[in-house]
């Protein structure tokens, strides 16, 4: 089956000028994207992770036709991003600029209807669709106020709503929960999940690891214009081959401790006793696999387990391991 988004050897090089004096400047070359190839399947939520300057925005701008690539090809919904750019635009709903990209002197309703017109919706459909989106985002009370009176969070929600106006099969959302408070961010993520359940393919960029971990089916890690790694979140985590640590608390007799230590995946067991409670720290090669066996070994040998706390490998750990940097570092060169 044809992927919904297919990217083949996509490259983008910028030629910024650097000032060398009052009248002299030197043209430099910056490869923002280096032969990126990806396939995103229909109905996926696909995450793009990378620090500032990694090339995420450049990639997204190429896909949404805002930027012409230097070489390579990409197709969205079967349309080529350069040769069929208008069809691509019609097939994609975008939230790229956050609260920029809205007319501050127009109301939310007017903004939505206006952008609906730009997506060639008929007059009646524009009005209906705008009403639907306003209701969806619970913006009825502010919909007829000009955007300049909104808070940052409200503007972001409206920007998200704008991306839904043309009911496109593909949604590209660039850090959509930026500046949203916790409840609003949670609400937006919920909406993203619902939209995905309806069949939309979603490309989602974020700095927030927990968002990528909970939302995305697959994630691509981008750094210095290249895809460093790609896969489902569990696959990416397990690719680290790091020791997994599990903490177990309870009443754990000697036999149970010995049974735990004898499990083939367990490499180390540390024991601490305090106030009649034993705390075992179990180091194993694969926490997912070993956990049920740990519980079985403990319960079959008379242990009373009160608490189990696995130490998880996070996506941030994966990122750091793959790139050598944290997500907060800025690697912008353009």
């Amino acid at each position: 089956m044809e992927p919904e988004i297919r990217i083949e050897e996509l490259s983008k090089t910028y030629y910024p000028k650097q000032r060398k004096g009052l009248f002299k400047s030197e043209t430099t070359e910056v490869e923002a994207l280096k032969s990126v190839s990806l396939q995103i399947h229909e109905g996926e939520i696909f995450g793009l992770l990378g620090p500032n300057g990694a090339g995420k925005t450049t990639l997204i701008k190429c896909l949404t036709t805002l930027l012409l690539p230097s070489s390579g090809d990409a197709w969205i919904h079967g349309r080529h991003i350069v040769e069929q750019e208008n069809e691509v635009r019609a097939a994609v709903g975008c939230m790229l600029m956050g609260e920029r990209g809205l007319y501050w002197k127009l109301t939310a309703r007017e903004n939505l209807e206006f952008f609906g017109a730009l997506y060639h919706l008929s007059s009646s459909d524009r009005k209906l669709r705008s009403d639907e989106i306003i209701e969806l985002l619970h913006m009825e009370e502010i919909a007829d106020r000009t955007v300049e009176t909104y808070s940052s969070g409200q503007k972001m929600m409206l920007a998200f709503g704008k991306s839904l106006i043309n009911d496109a099969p593909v949604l590209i959302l660039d850090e959509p929960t930026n500046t949203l408070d916790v409840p609003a961010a949670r609400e937006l993520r919920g909406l993203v999940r619902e939209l995905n359940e309806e069949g939309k393919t979603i490309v989602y960029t974020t700095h927030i690891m927990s968002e990528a971990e909970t939302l995305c089916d697959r994630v691509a890690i981008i750094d210095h214009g290249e895809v460093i790694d790609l896969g489902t979140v569990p696959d990416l985590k397990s690719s680290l081959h790091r020791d997994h640590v599990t903490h177990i608390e309870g009443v754990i007799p000697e036999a149970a401790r010995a049974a735990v230590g004898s499990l083939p995946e367990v490499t180390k067991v540390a024991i601490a006793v305090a106030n009649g409670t034993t705390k075992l720290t179990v180091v194993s090669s694969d926490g997912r696999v070993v956990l049920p066996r740990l519980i079985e070994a403990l319960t079959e040998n008379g242990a009373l387990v009160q608490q189990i706390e696995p130490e998880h490998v996070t996506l941030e750990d994966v990122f750091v391991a793959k790139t050598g940097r944290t997500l907060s570092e800025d690697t912008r060169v353009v």
Partner: protein
Amino acid sequence: MGTRSTPMKRLDGLSALFSSLVAMSRKEFIIMRRYPVEFVASFGQVFAVVAVFTLAALMFSSSPGEFAEGTGGGVVIYGFALFIFLSDTLWTIGYNIRREQKQGTLEALYLSPASKFASLVSRVTNSLIWTSLLVVAGVWLMSTMLGRLPFANPALGVFILVFALAGIFGVGFGFAAITLRIKEAGQTLANALQFILLILSAYFFPFGALPDGLLAISRFIPLSYAVDAFRSTLMGYPPGFPELAPIEIEIVITVLFGLLMPIIGYLLYRHSEAHVRKTGSLSEY
């Protein structure tokens, strides 16, 4: 929820173009309405400018009547009318692009499949309405100050005006193209262009007042012929007018200006657009 159960109707072809044009014009009009101080201030500004230059011109006459009976009044007011259109065009069509760039809405426009031609033309629509009102206000004030103004050949005057305006709008498109690339420097260029054309296209005085060197340069600017033809026609061709060439030739030049300049301006705009999409500076602010 997000996806509608009944698919939405999508327009195509001419109806899509027309729908985009109407929506964009309407958007510009709504935004304009929400700047009431700007609306009132623009009239105040026009009154002040007309009063300043009329009074200045009167200092060279022994009476207002003498100035009005001569060609002075007609030269100033009809030149003023075209100048206001030029100035407004440079700012609302040309520099407006810069405002959208800074706001982020230019990029938002480019994310949609809507026609970019419609985007440019929609800015013209509101400019036309607003500026026409300003011109009427200016003409009224000057008539009040001077008592009377020459007014002849209205039909031909309107014909020349239509093509002069089309040409001016084409200049606006070209200026939008430049602004996309040079960004903030576009403001300086808009100022410079206005002032250079103020002199070289002799909006406020007869071409005869220009030194020979500058007059020679004026003859290369199509806008100069449009200005000369327009005001000479409305003044009823007093002796010495038109100044640059016979009226028939000036009308031909104006018509060609009106037909070709929008095309040239639009092509320049598309070329600049391709450039900023290559360099990724569509949203730079």
